[in-house]
């Protein structure tokens, strides 16, 4: 069988199984098994188990369950409430202060939490009711939560970076640090949009009542306490990676201990809380791990069949030189992002894309940041925008999905702007990691 035919049959089997609602992990595995049996015979599967076993014992993968556990503990620790309150009182004088506060709080939370779902659900519960009570326009209120929450993909410690690093063979620590400046640019663009939009149309975000804003300075200062624990936690996790004190996987463990301490300081640490966090962690990380395993198997079989060479030749045939290829890849990633979850995309495309990127002389760390921007876009964009469904799970039936889609649009366009900056100026991503102590 020619590789062209294999590729078409493989894609057809994959898509057919996917639309029947079979979980993605089993779709990948079953497709791989069908093709390994017909092309190579059963013993190749023993080799594939070897690949899965390597993945199980991958050192960088350890950071995934640990960061999920950290997020689960932080969700119960009340730290997000305190953070949001402090930020919002201080950004009170601005129009749209609640929305600006949401973006800032999301950015700070994102420096502790690496998963988007946790962010959106948390701020959907904390920030949204206040904005709706104040009659904020949906575009400001709903969009700021989805867009701000999505920043967890880009602001370290992001689980997307960890997974990218594992598949691309790029250093996780460098990727984490590289995401900081592009992440802050994104946050600044979002805040800028809120300021401009509410300045042009003040009715979009009625200002806070005076009595709520005019808090005595002393009380305002007391509220700043809410920033202490989050800052300490973010600094200890990122700082230890930046300074080379700990590996990213160890830093995740430090983060877990820090989260437990934070919960204890707030008197929110309970045995049942730890237990439910552990249970939640294992279910999410098993779901993720089996996606890794499935992807290892299907990519392994496809590579054995010569697929990597085929993809390389096809991609290389994209016109307009190496920038044409980069832009072509962006379009493929954004398109896939409409239907597939980020994890499926990274696991299926990066083993094939990254060697090409390296051959073209691009930096894999930079490409990782660009990829995360793409995934931020996919989080916001219809029809399969995970951020929309996370928020929908919090708001219930009051707000239709379509309204959340429309609310996301301005932020979606801004993310495209940030993506263009990241692609055009690699220095934005690569300058900070170059200063890292190693």
């Amino acid at each position, binding site marked *: 069988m020619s590789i062209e035919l294999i590729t078409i049959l493989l894609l057809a089997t994959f898509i057919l199984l996917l639309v*029947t609602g079979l979980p993605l*992990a089993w779709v990948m595995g079953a497709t791989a098994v069908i093709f390994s049996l017909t092309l190579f015979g059963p013993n190749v*599967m023993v080799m594939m188990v070897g690949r899965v076993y390597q993945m199980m014992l991958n050192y960088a993968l*350890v950071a995934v369950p640990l960061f999920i556990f950290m997020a689960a503990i932080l969700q119960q620790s009340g730290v997000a409430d305190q953070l949001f309150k402090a930020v919002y009182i201080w950004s009170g004088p601005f129009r749209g202060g609640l929305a600006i506060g949401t973006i800032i709080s999301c950015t700070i939370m994102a420096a502790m939490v690496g998963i988007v779902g946790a962010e959106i659900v948390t701020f959907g519960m904390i920030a949204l009711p206040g904005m709706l009570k104040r009659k904020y326009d949906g575009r400001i209120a709903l969009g700021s939560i989805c867009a701000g929450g999505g920043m967890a993909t880009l602001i370290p410690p992001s689980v997307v970076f960890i997974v990218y690093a594992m598949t691309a063979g790029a250093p996780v620590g460098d990727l984490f640090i590289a995401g900081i400046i592009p992440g802050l640019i994104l946050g600044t663009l979002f805040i800028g949009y809120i300021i401009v939009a509410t300045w042009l149309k003040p009715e979009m975000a009625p200002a806070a009542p005076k009595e709520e804003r005019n808090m005595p300075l002393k009380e305002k200062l007391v509220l700043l306490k809410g920033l202490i624990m989050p800052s300490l936690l973010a600094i200890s996790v990122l700082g230890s990676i930046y300074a080379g004190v700990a590996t990213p996987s160890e830093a995740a*463990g430090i983060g877990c201990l820090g989260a437990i301490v934070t919960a204890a300081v707030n008197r929110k640490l309970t045995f049942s809380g730890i237990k439910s966090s552990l249970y939640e962690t*294992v*279910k999410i990380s*098993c779901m993720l791990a089996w996606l890794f395993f499935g992807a290892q198997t299907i990519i392994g079989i496809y590579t054995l069949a010569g697929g990597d060479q085929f993809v390389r030749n096809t991609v290389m045939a994209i016109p307009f030189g190496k920038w044409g290829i980069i832009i072509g890849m962006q379009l493929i990633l954004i398109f896939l992002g409409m239907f597939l979850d980020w994890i499926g995309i990274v696991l299926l495309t990066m083993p094939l894309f990254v060697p090409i990127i390296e051959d073209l002389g691009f930096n894999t760390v930079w490409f990782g940041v660009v990829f995360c921007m793409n995934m931020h876009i996919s989080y916001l964009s219809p029809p399969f925008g995970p951020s929309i469904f996370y928020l929908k799970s919090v708001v219930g039936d009051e707000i239709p999905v379509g309204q959340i889609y429309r609310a996301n649009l301005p932020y979606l366009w801004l993310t495209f702007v940030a993506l263009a900056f990241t692609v055009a100026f690699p220095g934005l991503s690569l300058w900070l990691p170059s200063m890292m102590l190693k």
Partner: protein
Amino acid sequence: MKKLLSFIDALSTLVGKAGSWLILPVVVFIGYEIVMRYIFHLPTLWVSESMVFGCGMSYVLGAAWALKDNRHVKIDLIYGRLTARQRAVIDSITYLFFALYMTVFLWAASKYTWQSILVGETTSSAWDPPVYPIKIALVVGVALLLLQGTAKFIRDLHFAIKGTEL
């Protein structure tokens, strides 16, 4: 039949919960390692391997539990618009693909693990622990997945044919 199915549920949950407790020692070990390395300048030999062992086992032991709670992501562009009974019909058919994957994987993983046990394979690091516990955990996890998936299949089939929950 009902008893057997709820036994499978309970077994998956029990093993999954047990697996989740492996995360906590990993966190504690990391804290211990950092303290030993920077305060006592005595880095340990065994922490980094225990980290991957603990987490690695948890990924496979909890998978059946995650399946029972329907946590494995799927694309529900079309699937999400079907009625519960239509879904049960489709799930009963796609089960065959799941079963094919898991059966072949179980066979391959058992063969892989058995080879390792026969030679008494170790990690050949400075600490040098045996690797068979992780490989056995992989086989157990896959067997449980197949079992839990089959339990789901029996339920789906019953619902597809009779229209009532089993």
